[in-house]
């Protein structure tokens, strides 16, 4: 009896509020990305790490400018500052002085600061490019394996097992050893960088692949995938429009965490002597040189070591922060 109560007017009165989904207060079309960014901004440690990374990148990019301003260069010898008999820098602490704030290299007296700065270029460049490669491979193959399942999944998963079962470093050494000096239209350091990027990226994609595959497996069970399929979406649409945006968070987080791993990988290769061509400096290469002097000139080991440490740490901190910020469960 009586007319049914008018529904719609009453319903619009209540403001649509997400129960604890985002922050309190006004929520004006804010994407999850913006929410994550807000959370990240509150994470002081992660922000500091992020700023440090930016500074580092700036330093690397501006290395020529900075060294010119300081009147040094990464390849200029300062033989006069080297003890001719002992081959180590004169003075204490690796020859630290006003002109050479981080000291000089044994044997030839090159400026360590300039070399560390130039080394950052190589380390970061290789790490970034290698990460890009492994992320691309890992995401493509991981998504494919996770979504398609069946034989494709089996083959890709087993391939990942094979890669993970490999003593990677060996292959890296072996491959780096057989690089011709010219190939693919590249030569010299360009080619070496390309090869190092390939080796590092190609061997670290399974880490990304596994994570993405796992995420895809669980996303595949989500109903919005079925929804897209039930509307007639083709596989590429499902993969790239529906799945991929949801993988951005893990991709971002694990890329950030992969970069430091790759920095260490590159350094390890250089450390083992299969890195970039001299005299181009790289951190691992500097450490490699430092082995011969670490007891008589410890500064020369500590400085590139510290550079690696700080950079890797900054990326790890940022990655941790990103993970917290992007974690849907985190509050």
């Amino acid at each position: 009896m009586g007319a049914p109560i008018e529904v719609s007017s009453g319903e619009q009165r209540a403001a649509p509020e997400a129960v604890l989904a985002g922050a309190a207060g006004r929520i004006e079309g804010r994407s999850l990305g913006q929410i994550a960014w807000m959370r990240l901004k509150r994470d002081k440690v992660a922000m500091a790490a992020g700023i440090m990374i930016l500074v580092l990148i700036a330093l690397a990019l501006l290395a020529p400018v900075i060294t010119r301003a300081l009147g040094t260069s990464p390849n200029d010898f300062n033989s006069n500052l080297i003890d001719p008999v002992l081959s180590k820098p004169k003075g204490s602490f690796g020859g630290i002085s006003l002109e050479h704030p981080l000291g000089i290299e044994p044997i030839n007296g090159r400026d360590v600061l300039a070399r560390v700065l130039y080394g950052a270029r190589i380390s970061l460049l290789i790490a970034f490019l290698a990460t890009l490669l492994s992320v691309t491979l890992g995401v493509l193959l991981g998504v494919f394996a996770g979504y398609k399942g069946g034989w494709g999944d089996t083959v890709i998963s087993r391939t990942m097992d094979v890669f993970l079962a490999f003593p990677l470093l060996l292959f890296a050494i072996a491959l780096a050893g057989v690089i011709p000096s010219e190939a693919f239209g590249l030569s010299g350091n360009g080619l070496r960088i390309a090869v190092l990027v390939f080796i590092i990226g190609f061997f670290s994609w399974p880490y990304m692949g596994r994570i993405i595959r796992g995420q895809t497996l669980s996303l595949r069970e989500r109903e919005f995938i079925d929804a897209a399929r039930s509307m007639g979406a083709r596989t590429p649409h499902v993969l790239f429009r529906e799945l991929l945006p949801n993988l951005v968070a893990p991709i971002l987080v694990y890329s950030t965490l992969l970069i430091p791993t790759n920095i260490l990988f590159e350094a390890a290769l250089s450390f083992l002597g299969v890195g970039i061509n001299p005299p181009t400096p790289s951190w691992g290469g500097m450490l490699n040189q430092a082995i011969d002097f670490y007891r008589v000139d410890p500064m020369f080991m500590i400085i590139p070591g510290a550079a690696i440490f700080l950079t890797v740490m900054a990326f790890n901190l940022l990655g941790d922060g990103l993970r917290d910020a992007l974690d849907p469960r985190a509050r």
Partner: protein
Amino acid sequence: GNDSGSGGGSGSSGGGGSAEYNAASEGIVNKSDATGGTLKYVLSDAPDSMDPGDTYYAFNWNFTRLYARPLLTFKPAPGKAGLELSPDLAESLGEVSADGLTWTYKLKQGITYDDGTPVTSKDVKYAIARSNYTAELVNGPKYFAQYLDAGNYAGPYKDKNLDDFTGIQTPDDSTIVFKLKAPFSEFDFLVANPQSAPVPQAKDKGLQYQAAVASTGPYKMESHEVGKSLVLVKNDKWDPKTDENRKQLVDRIEVQFKVDANDIDQRLMNGQADVDLGGTGVQAQARATLLQDPNQKKNVDNPQTGFLRYAMLSTQVPPFDNADCRKAVLYAADHEAIQAAYGGSAGGDIATTALPPSVVGYEKADEYGFLQDKNGNPDKAKQALQACGKPGGFSTKIAVRGDRPKEVAAAEALQQSLSKVGIKTSIQQYPSGDWSAQFAGNPQFVHANGLGIQIAGWGADWPSGFGFLSQLVDGRAIKANGGNYNQMELNDPEVNALLDKGIQTKDETERNATWTQVDQKVMASGALLPFVYEKTILYRPENLTNVFVNPSYGMYDYSQLGTTKK
């Protein structure tokens, strides 16, 4: 009084020079006949083989004498005398026929193996056959195969009948006759190689022979774990009367392989080890410690090793096909910076010739004034550039063995000095394993990749001009497929002719003068840029006795060492 010092260790070191910086380079330190004790050798690597017939390391040619006696050996003496040959298994130096094609040696009587079997000339013949004519023993040099007139001998492993080996004849058990294809005046040096140490055919196990070598020397193998360790003990069948070249002082010799180089230094200084078998000297870390501390410095020797460190300028790679362009590099090179790369003044003396001083035939010369202009002579370099038609400089590549830090550092130093005169270089690293086979030693590769400058080093197989230079500068020996050491591809008919002439010259003085000429010719070509005459920093533990550097090996003479430690 009795209260001073601990024990009378120093008392037993009767006679001989006392410990002083570089004392063992020129004289004998701690001369002593005291016996007993154990000597501990350590090596940072594993040797190619401990088989006297299958090794190409100077330290092993030195060391294997403890259990293998070749026909001749170098005199156990410091200084120039050490470069001379002394009869060992043979009664005297070789007798050469008039045509220079036959060399005859007589074996001493009464020499036996450690099991008491007498040594015969057949065993020497067999030893040379196995080391030079088999596919299995590949490590050692193949000079006998190169110079003996043996036809198509298949080697003892394929052809069990030793009589088919006609290059060597054994008319009786104590006579051995070598038949040559062409006269070879320095043949005595060839038989001073441990390859001429006898091997009983029955005991030969090929590649496994190194595990239990039949000993003729003062020591024999007690145990040998290949690649790990070796223990030698006294061989009571060794008769000192037949052997004026060796001593049998210590009771036991232990060798440990694959010890980290820095740890070796540490052990030497701590008294945990006595000799670095490799004889390549201490690492940078220890060097600084040793040279800074006067107490330690007196236990340091700084001998030349007989090695020349150099860069070769590839005469087939433009613009180095032009001699003036090569000379521009020679003039521009900063020798002091390069010397620093090799360890500074203690790592080597600046080199000015192709032959190192420890080699007969060396004559002092400095055509390019390396010693006056230690940091290079840019003016002359620019003149040379002008002359070669590249006044603004040019660019080229420096090839270097990536796993040799000193050579990489030298490449960097060279690169720096060249850049000052407008010669731009990029450094290419290659693994040393394939260096000569695939990269720098492979002309096709060198040409294709434009490797204008290659950095390497060389030591003589025997201390003569020929022993040093024949592999390096003989243009006729260049192999198209790789494996070359004449990486500058110098093929100067005059040089080739001088080499031929010299080796056929019987008169020693005349011969040695030929080597000097070769040296001058090579230097004049501008294709060889000598860096340093390498020196090592050897640590000489105080307990070692009879220590001196044998210049033939560039390290302590291992046949003489004793110890005061019991």
